[in-house]
């Protein structure tokens, strides 16, 4: 009897151990798979990009010429376009997202909270191709006919920033792409900000209000310091998305491989160039150059994440030591 129950128990224990081991190795495989995929992608990219990188060497990054006929390729225009469109997009989207998040968490009447919140989430669900056609057929004509002429008239003659707003109003161009990008990353940044603002304890906010702080003072001096790590995370999420966005940008940026001083002129981004030219890339050097563009994009997004990590680390250390 005793022996029997012992035998039953040990077989149960054995099954348990086996299950545990299976579970542990399954999770290990999943984790290793991610590393293997990342390594594989990197190897494939560098391998594909090698002919172009070997041919042009550093010139691939420092030259802006992009001539498939003479087979001269330099990525500078695309890199510049990628960074400038994303930066302008963040310049627009971050303050607006901050406003949306503050309104939703601190100021909004309760009946308005849900509709606005749901609308933001829906905005995030719109496929990027929709933003592309909307940008091309709706936003670009409006910009060309009204906004850009007005900008040219108002800001063009100014000394420092004037050159950014000169030239003919094309409608499509760097500024249009940046605007579309701003609209696309807005829901991501604002929903992250809203979520982190909501994690600020009520008691902390109330102690601010209790000392006679205004809503603005409570937001700026209590809510923001408390949630700065989350804010940086949200901004980086948006920036990462803006850097890699392809379809919508391809529609509205004009796809011209040149660096123009004016934001109204057509330009290109890395991902837009790849998407736009892959089908018509003849010759291995052309294809290889496009893949090399991909390597650059990979490096840019990687450094953005690295910088974000570094900033977060410093913020956390500061929060621990000095406050």
């Amino acid at each position: 009897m005793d022996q029997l129950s012992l035998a039953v128990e040990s077989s149960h224990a054995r099954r348990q151990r086996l299950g545990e081991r299976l579970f542990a190795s399954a999770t290990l495989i999943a984790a290793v798979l991610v590393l293997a995929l990342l390594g594989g992608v990197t190897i494939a990219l560098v391998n594909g990009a090698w002919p172009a990188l070997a041919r042009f060497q550093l010139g691939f990054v420092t030259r802006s010429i992009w001539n498939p006929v003479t087979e001269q390729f330099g990525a500078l225009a695309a890199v510049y376009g990628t960074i400038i469109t994303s930066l302008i997009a963040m310049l627009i989207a971050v303050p607006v997202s901050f406003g949306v998040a503050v309104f939703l968490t601190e100021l909004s009447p309760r009946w308005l909270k849900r509709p606005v919140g749901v609308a933001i989430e829906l905005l995030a669900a719109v496929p990027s191709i929709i933003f592309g056609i909307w940008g091309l057929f709706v936003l670009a004509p409006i910009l060309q006919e009204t906004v850009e002429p007005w900008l040219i008239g108002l800001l063009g003659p100014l000394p420092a920033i004037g050159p950014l707003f000169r030239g003919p109003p094309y409608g499509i161009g760097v500024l249009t792409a940046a605007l579309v990008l701003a609209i696309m990353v807005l829901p991501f940044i604002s929903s992250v900000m809203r979520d982190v603002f909501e994690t600020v304890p009520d008691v902390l906010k109330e102690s601010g209000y209790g000392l006679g702080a205004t809503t603005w003072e409570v937001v700026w001096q209590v809510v923001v310091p408390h949630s700065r790590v989350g804010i940086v995370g949200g901004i980086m999420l948006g920036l990462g998305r803006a850097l890699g966005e392809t379809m919508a940008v391809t529609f509205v940026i004009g796809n011209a491989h040149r660096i123009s001083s004016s934001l109204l002129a057509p330009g290109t981004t890395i991902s837009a160039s790849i998407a736009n030219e892959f089908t018509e890339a003849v010759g291995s050097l052309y294809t290889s150059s496009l893949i090399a563009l991909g390597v650059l994009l990979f490096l840019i997004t990687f450094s953005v994440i690295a910088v974000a990590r570094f900033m977060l680390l410093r913020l956390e250390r500061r929060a621990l030591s000095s406050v």
Partner: protein
Amino acid sequence: MSSVEQGGINLKPSGRVAAAPSTALEEGGIGQTVGQTTVQDPIFSCRKVHVSYGNKHGIRDVSLDIGKRQVLAMIGPSGCGKSTFLRCLNRMNDTIPGARVTGEILLEGRDIHDRQLDVVQLRARVGMVFQKPNPFPKSIYENVAYGPRLHGLARSRAQLDDIVCSSLQRAGLWDEVKDRLAQAGTGLSGGQQQRLCIARTIAVQPEVILMDEPCSALDPVATARIEDLIDELQESYAIVIVTHSMQQAARVSQRTAYFHLGALVEVGETDRIFTNPRHKLTEDYITGRFG
């Protein structure tokens, strides 16, 4: 929102009340407040104050004066509306969505719901200490300097240093923290944090200090220190304290108000309330028959 619960709106019609003796219906249940609701030269004068959250009633028909330089204790079972009433006095209920306050609350003769009156100024005059110690995640110095900075009370750094130093001294915390003002306020012990919050409140030089169960998260030693502090502060401020401890109410206050189910049942001199309660509900509560 947790603050709603702290505000005491969870009127539970069953439970506690069912346990209350049937004699609660004597004198017509909770009718008119028993005892002297008015005082000579009050700092706060409240008439027929009514608070509702959506369709729930927080408190109803509370009329009560608060005297200068004395401690008023508010006692009563959970959810009786004492915290809700407290939060009316600095309009903290404004921060709770759906809260509606009616009735008249005069601060030195001036209606605090007057559109002309700035709620920020009101809260500078009526400071608040919360149930849970809630220092800002900043240094000890910055915690105390926060309010004076907000309201521009100090013209120079030296003056600000003075305010911080004297506020910490009055809160009985100076000797413990004078060598580490730059360290985080959140690194202090619970009792020290609560005294830091009191220092932060008096740094703004308020006229009234509201305390919402300031000792409920503290151990007996820390509680005793806060109670001593209340005794000292009472010489300069009007203090309104919500407490669950009847002993605490008896120790620190001159007047006591007993709340039940959102109504002010009885108010009077603390000695009188605890030795000779006139309302049956008050008697039942302080003798420990429920609550």
